[in-house]
C-alpha cells in the first residue's frame, strides 16, 4: 500500500463509515457485533486498498465483508460474554423516532439486509443483489415486503385504532 493511496482511504472511510455502521447494526441488532464487523471490514479494505478502490463501488465490498463477518463476530461475543443479552437491544434512548427503529429491527433478517443496503447505504438493486448473493428480483420483492410490513406497523388503520380504543 502506498502512502499516496492512504488519503483516499481516509476520505472514503469518513464518508461511508457512519452509514455502513448503521446498516450493519440493522442487520446484527447488536452494537458490539456491528462495530467489530465494520472495523474488520475497513481494515481488510485498507490492506487491499489498491484493489478495493479500483472497484465500481468500494462501499459494496466493505458492506459485504462486514455482513459476512458479523455472524462470526457475534458468535465470538457470545462466547466471551455469555450474559451480554442486554447488548443486543438497540439504544433507543436518543432517537427521535424509536418506533421506526423497533419496526425495522423486528423485520426478518433478509428484509433487514435489503432495507440496510437499499435505504441506509443507498445501493441500487443490482449492487444490493451482488452484495447479498441473491437475484435483483429477490431484492425488489424483499424490499416491497419490508416496506409493506413497516407501513402496516407504523400506520395503523383507523379501524385498528378504534378497535384498540385509542
Amino acid at each position, binding site marked *: *500500500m502506498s*502512502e499516496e*493511496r*492512504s*488519503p483516499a*482511504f*481516509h476520505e472514503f*472511510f*469518513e464518508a461511508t*463509515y*457512519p452509514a455502513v*455502521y*448503521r446498516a450493519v*447494526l*440493522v442487520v446484527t441488532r447488536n*452494537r458490539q457485533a456491528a*462495530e467489530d464487523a465494520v*472495523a*474488520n471490514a*475497513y*481494515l*481488510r479494505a*485498507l*490492506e*487491499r*486498498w489498491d*484493489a*478495493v478502490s479500483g*472497484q465500481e463501488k468500494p462501499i459494496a*465490498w466493505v458492506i*459485504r*465483508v462486514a455482513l*459476512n463477518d458479523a455472524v*462470526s463476530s457475534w*458468535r*465470538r461475543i457470545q462466547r*466471551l460474554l455469555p450474559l451480554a443479552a442486554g447488548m443486543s437491544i*438497540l*439504544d433507543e434512548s*436518543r*432517537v*427521535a*423516532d*424509536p418506533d*421506526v*427503529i423497533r419496526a*425495522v429491527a423486528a423485520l426478518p433478517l433478509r428484509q433487514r439486509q435489503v*432495507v440496510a443496503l437499499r*435505504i*441506509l447505504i443507498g445501493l441500487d438493486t443490482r449492487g444490493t443483489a*451482488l452484495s447479498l*448473493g441473491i437475484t435483483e428480483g429477490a431484492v425488489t420483492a424483499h424490499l416491497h415486503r419490508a*416496506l409493506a410490513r*413497516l*407501513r402496516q406497523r*407504523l*400506520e395503523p388503520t383507523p379501524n385498528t385504532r378504534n378497535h384498540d380504543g385509542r
Partner: protein
Amino acid sequence: MDDDALSERIRSAFADISVPTRPELVGARKNRGGRWLLLRAASLVVAVLLAGFLLLRPDGSAVQPVDAWTAVPLPQDSVLIARAEATCGNGVVSDKTLASRPIDFGLPFSVVDGRGNGAVALFTDGTNNATCRFYWDRSGTVGSATSSYGRFTSTDSSRLDFLIGAGGSDSFDMVIGHSGTLATTVDVELESGADVTASLGHGFYLAWWPERGKILRIVARDATGAISGELDQPHF
C-alpha cells in the same frame, strides 16, 4: 406514506443512532499511513497471542524465540522463497530430520508463510508433501530447520479444504489446505480471537502461529471480497 417518504423516515431515524469513533482508522492518513495501522493491528494480535515472550521449538532440541510474529505474513518475495528452498530443499536441515528433506523426495516448492523471524514452507507434487519449519536471526542466517513428510488425503484443488493442522507443541500450530480455485485471500480465525491471514501459492494456503490454537473458521474470499469457501471448526 409512500415508499420515498417511508424510506426517508427510516434514514432520519437511524441517523440519530450514535456511531462509535475509530480514531485508529481516521488517523491512518494523518500519521504514518496504512503501514502504521497494520503494524498497530498486528501488535495487538501479537500482544494477545504471545502474552510476553513465547518460544518456538523447531526441532525439539533448540529453543528459539519467535521475534515479531505478525497476523499478516511477510510477502513471498524472492528472498524468502530462496531462503525456503535453500534451507528446506537442500540446505541446513538438522541431522534428526535429514531423511525427510523435500529434496529427498524431489518435491517442488509451493508456498512459504513467513512471519517475524520464522517461516513454514510447503513442498508438494499435489499428493506427496513435505512441510519445513525454519527461523533465522537478525542477519538473515538460518539457525535450524525441521521438516516432515506426508501424503495429502485429497487432491481436489477446486475448493477450500483442510489438509494439515496442529503443530504438535504448545508453542506452535499451523494449517495447510487447498485454497480453492477462486480464492485470492484466506483468513484463519482462531479461538483466541486472532484472525491470521494465510499465505497462498500454487493452489494452497498456509498459516502458522506461535501457540496451540483451535481454529474456529477458515474463510476464503475471491477478488471481489465475496466468500468463495468457508470451513467451520475444521478438524480431522
